[in-house]
């Protein structure tokens, strides 16, 4: 991709506004899954790690790329599974229980 800096900055500015817009709709109840979900999303640095390690042509780059790749994969995989595990737990009150709590 060959983008001019101006286009990149334009994308960045739009992403900032979009980010605030979308995040402001997340209820406080889901703030922990939001944090772990965004943890997962910043795991996208894995793309950078793949490019560095995939093109590494000296030992220095191979070492740096290898560590970056390891960290980023742990970030992606761990972030996703933790979020999934958490979201699975959020359940609504089952119907019969409402009856047993007359008020």
């Amino acid at each position, binding site marked *: *991709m060959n983008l001019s800096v101006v286009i*990149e900055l334009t994308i960045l500015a739009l992403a900032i506004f979009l*980010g605030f817009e979308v995040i402001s709709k997340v209820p406080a109840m889901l703030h922990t899954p939001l944090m772990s979900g965004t943890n997962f999303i910043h795991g996208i640095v894995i793309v950078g790690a793949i490019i560095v390690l995939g093109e590494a042509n000296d030992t220095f780059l191979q070492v740096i790329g290898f560590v970056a790749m390891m960290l980023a*994969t742990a970030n992606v995989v761990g972030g996703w599974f933790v979020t999934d595990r958490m979201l699975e737990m959020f359940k609504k009150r089952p119907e019969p229980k409402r009856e047993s709590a007359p*008020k």
Partner: protein
Amino acid sequence: MIALIARDSNLIGLLYLVTIICFILALRFLSSPKHARRGNWIGGVGMIIAITSTLLLDGIGNWVLIIVAAAIGAGVGFFGARTVKMTAMPQMVALFNGVGGGAAALVALAEFHIATAGLPTTASVSTVLSALIGSISFAGSMIAFAKLQELLSGRPITFPAQNLFNIAVLAATVALGISLVAGVHDQWVLWLLVVLALLFGVLFVLPIGGADMPVVISLLNAFTGLAASATGFVLSNTVLIVAGMLVGASGTMLTLLMAKAMNRSVTNVLFGAFGQVQAGAGTGMLADDGRTVRATTPEDVAVQLSFASKVVIVPGYGMAVAQAQHDVRQLAELLEEKGVDVKYAIHPVAGRMPGHMNVLLAEANVPYDALKEMDEINPEFPQTDVALVIGANDVTNPAARHDTASPIYGMPILDVDKAASVIVMKRSMNPGFAGIDNELYLEPQTTMLFGDAKDSVVKLIAAVKQT
């Protein structure tokens, strides 16, 4: 080499666009617990598209290294995600912030190494930012992890002239960054910058106390996102720019929300070394005006709870530490069977990260519609018979409403003291993490049930069964 996709093709840009849309949808679906899990799956698909298409780019080699590194990372990540206890979620999030920031900083270091001559200004600015923010985030997150995991003391760690020293370290780091942007192309300068940024990361989290962790974790989350976004500028990569910035926006928003929930500015949290003010003045209030703390027994509490018509449970970090969430749910169900209306009052900064209590109670199968946010539950306290405070402290302190001298003055609190009777479950009379006495404990309607939260709740369950 597989090399199916040309580096400059529109195809790769379009594939990354699909990933961006998936990520936005993932966040959008988080607006309701009903669809949130589906959103996470969509995000996962987006990530797989980005990873696969990057692997197919021309010029990608070193397959053995890639596979080994990915296998180790995936194994550790999967194992960690599967085994971590819900009570340890703040540490886990801190850790993931750290590894993400670390990876971003390493990519920046590598790109700087590849560029043999001076980089164009944009590339050098973003390389410096990515290395700087990524390193701060990495080191800061590791300290936050150590504090939350109690490898380090959760109390603020301070030393003389701390703020001055921290500012000096940051200034030196920024100066190195400017020299790099100005055209100095020496790897050692960048390495030195990384070392100083790591040092700053350690220094800036050290003085922050446990109760302020929700702010710091959110801030580190934002930093990692910004570092990823800066890496996107280094690599001219749209998906990194946008995804990183989405995380940056989310982290920033949470930071501001958490600071607001404590009625403090972010700078005050970062540089205020909260808890210093009254540390040591722990128990002075008991003799204050002749009022004393009254202790009670599980049996008495059980009677009070069983004959109440409305009970509000106020969970705090103490419940998380004691892992009492399952027993709390059991107690609540028992009371509901007796016809008691039971609700949970959740303060935005209860626990050690945003939403901490919600996750714990969700794990214990408490339906999420029983959990009430502060603004929703506060008007209900005057009609509440018993407020049961389980391991929460500062978020219930009425001093926040009227005592202008209190460090927590102005912080929105749960109006627990307005309930007809208040039962506080607490390990001892030690002040909370903010190091402040809680005058709620001296109120005439308050009684204390001392002991580990889990033990006490188990005893309560047994006692309620007999009433």
